[in-house]
């Protein structure tokens, strides 16, 4: 089977520090309100006990991308390795993709009047470097995997993540493990 790459988000290692998000911004020097990667807090009681847990999400580079289908001007293409690319040149800023994406990934840039999103640092990867978020994470919580490989503990969803059946995202997750807690309100 051909190699299909995706993000493996290890929420057990993630400490919600936003370094990945800011590493992305640092790499591309984006407008303040543009956030290709976002660190979402998960419900405190999602994993037994209460804890501060997160899912760091960028574009999920879906197998069946809703953005691509919704785009009227073929601004989206899916590379052979699975990366969903968006062309600012072709984009007319109609926002159809923004409505179609279940993960609210494409963002509208008020300055360029066009949409933009994470391209998994395709150019960096093409020259043999890892994406900025991957190398920027102090916890090594984000990696690039071949989604056709079997990764121990990798799951297709986390609590709160939209139904993966809609677009078949390539992002995989490792669930946080919450330790024993001795709380005073028990």
């Amino acid at each position, binding site marked *: 089977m051909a190699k299909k790459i995706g993000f493996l988000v290890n929420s057990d290692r993630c400490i919600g520090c936003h370094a990945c998000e800011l590493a992305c911004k*640092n790499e591309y020097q984006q407008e303040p309100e543009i956030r290709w990667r976002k660190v979402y807090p998960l419900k405190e009681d999602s994993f037994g006990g209460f804890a501060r847990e997160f899912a760091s999400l960028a574009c999920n580079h879906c197998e069946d991308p809703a953005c691509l289908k919704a785009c009227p001007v073929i601004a989206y293409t899916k590379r052979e390795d699975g990366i969903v690319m968006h062309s600012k040149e072709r984009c007319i800023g109609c926002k159809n993709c923004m409505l179609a994406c279940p993960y609210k990934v494409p963002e509208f840039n008020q300055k360029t009047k066009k949409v933009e999103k994470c391209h998994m640092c*395709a150019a960096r990867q093409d020259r*043999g470097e890892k994406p900025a978020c991957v190398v*920027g994470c*102090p916890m090594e919580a984000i990696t690039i995997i071949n989604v056709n490989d079997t990764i121990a503990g990798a799951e297709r969803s986390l609590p709160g993540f939209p139904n993966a059946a809609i677009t078949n995202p390539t992002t995989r997750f490792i669930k946080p493990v919450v330790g024993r807690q001795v709380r005073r309100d028990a």
Partner: protein
Amino acid sequence: MKQKSVVSRRTFLKGAAATVATVSFGGTFFDFIFSGLSPAVAAENSTVELFRNACPRNCYDTCAILSTVQDGVLKKVVGDPASTYTRGTLCAKGFSYTRSVYSPDRIKYPMRQIGRGSGNWQRISWDEAYTEIAQNMLRLKREYGSTLPICLNKYSGNFDIMHYGIEGMLTSIGNTTRATGTPCWPAGIDAQTFDFGTIVCNDPEDIVNSKYLIIWGANPAWCSVHSMYFVKEAQQRGCKVVVIDPILTQTASKADLYIQIKSSTDGALALGMARYILDHNLYDGEWLAKNSKGAEEFFSYLKNNITLEWAAEKTGIPQHIIEMLAREYATTKPANIWIGYGMQRHTNGGQNVRAIDALAAITGNIGKSGGGAQYAQLETWGFKYHAMSQSKPANSGGKEDRAININNFGAEVLNAQDPPIKMLWIACRGPMTQDPETAVVKKAFEGMDLVVTADLYMTPTVEMSDIVLPVTTAFETPGVNVSYWHYWLSLNEQAIKPMYESKNDVTIAMELSAKLNELEQGSCTFPTSGDLQEWVGKEFSEGIYKQFGIQDWQELKKGPVKAKSGLIAWQDGKFRTPSGKYELWSAEAEKYGHFPLPVYVEEMQSTDKYPLRCITPHWKLSIHSQFQNLDWMAAVNNEPHIEIHPKVAAKYHIKDNDSVKMFNDIGYITLPAKITETVSPDVVAVYETWYKNKKFNVNYTVKAIPADMGKKATGAPGIAFHDNFVAIQKM
């Protein structure tokens, strides 16, 4: 267009930093198709340079940074992979540095405010600024017979070694008044000074060798992200990670065992554990006999005064949990304790740290890889302090500098007599947001003849100043940095030219000196010129060269270096106490008014009127008043909140995001509620920071209550920031 040769980052790293490489950018296929730029528009033959920088913030991590500068513009920053501590990554704050440098909010030129707090600012030239400042300094000296009415408040905004030149500048005009002490950590420093003789910690990279790790009142997941990697690494190698904290912090969320302790009762837990260890013969008698003083007295105190039942009652932790913790800690070797700064910000904070230190001592965990009682270290700070070490001009009046307590700054300024304080110089500091009792601080500012603040942004402190001087960021000036936690030494190269009219604080000192001498020959000894790079070189001592195994400071241009020795604290068993032993019984402590043994001192209690303890820890997107004001951070979060337990919220009919007023005798703040199980029902948490254009300032409610210790090592006791009791109501 075919892809041109783009020099990869790896190629850059092979060479020394700051070597100029000429490469083609923007010509790749990818950029053409997806950037929206046409190849003709994209710049060709740009000059790209790499510089080594160091994050100078008041932070454990003091990261080594690699900065990419294209045609004189700072394009991005990454962690320097040459440091095995930073490991090529930064934190969210570090990654925001381009926005710090190029923020539209930078103060661009000197300004004078007509009417303090009025917002009526006028641009002035540097010469006008120096003239007004120098004239006031000389006038005050004439009127009062000395320069003592001039007060410096400088602390942790920039810990670059050369920035101690700010202190040097004040020395060079004569005897002055100095805000003395440190708000952050002094109680713990004194505690470890009584026990060990000073503060020294193991290399944090050594955490991976621990088999048992208690993180006690520290939150590295927010405040030392690079250490958190080593904590996780230890965990993966089989180390049990225990977090003891009144708040279920981010670090606690990742622990194997989280114990929610009643705030400020840490000493009771440590002493209860010690009693269990004593009763079950789990202590290291051999280590104690060889290395300690006062073990017998300490054990006698435990036997006569401490019970497990009492410890459970005091701390709110079930007795069987205390017993389990004590047994596991005493029998798993090596066992490590990381003592946080949060847990010592109490009226009994220093005593609590001493009790925790005692646990490490009686179990023989001190001086060992994977063991220890980690607090901080200043071992790598043995510089010459050339910029700081200035002489006082002859006949400038007064006998010596006058110290006032930085931790009660407002009141101390107002109370100063003979002579009174009439002028403030503020640098690397934001008392109007970071000090307790904001209203008193404001009153102190209002009584001044002149307030001069050197800063990057229009902070609330600048808003209360008469003259603001724009300063450079770390990227615009050379320097050298070490950490109070890890053992790396990093050069900070000047990567870009100073922005606008900004100047380094040392340059300001030189130029002010020239103006003072112009107006009154001999009134200031600070050199009136000098090359900043050369001045960095002058900070290095033979001791630093030896410790880091370098011959010349310029070698650091090739990358940061780590200390060659002293990475395991107290490995040689030579303690720096008066007895040369680890002192469970400290006559020095007694001299400073404490009980000589680590004993339990009662914690402060809530009252009927103010039933909730408000804890004000650090926030993950800022370090004190820095970073949260930047637009990139505001995009992630731009709203402070008060964390409230669901039971408390129900009692006050508060729902998520409801507006809540938190108040006590001295002030109030209003902010949205966050209902969360991460706090206990007797605690609310509000994270201290400065938001741009928001009225939020948690210190409106924080009183300047001194912590128990800090006087010996730092000149003034710390602040019991977390002994703040409040009431809340739904708005």
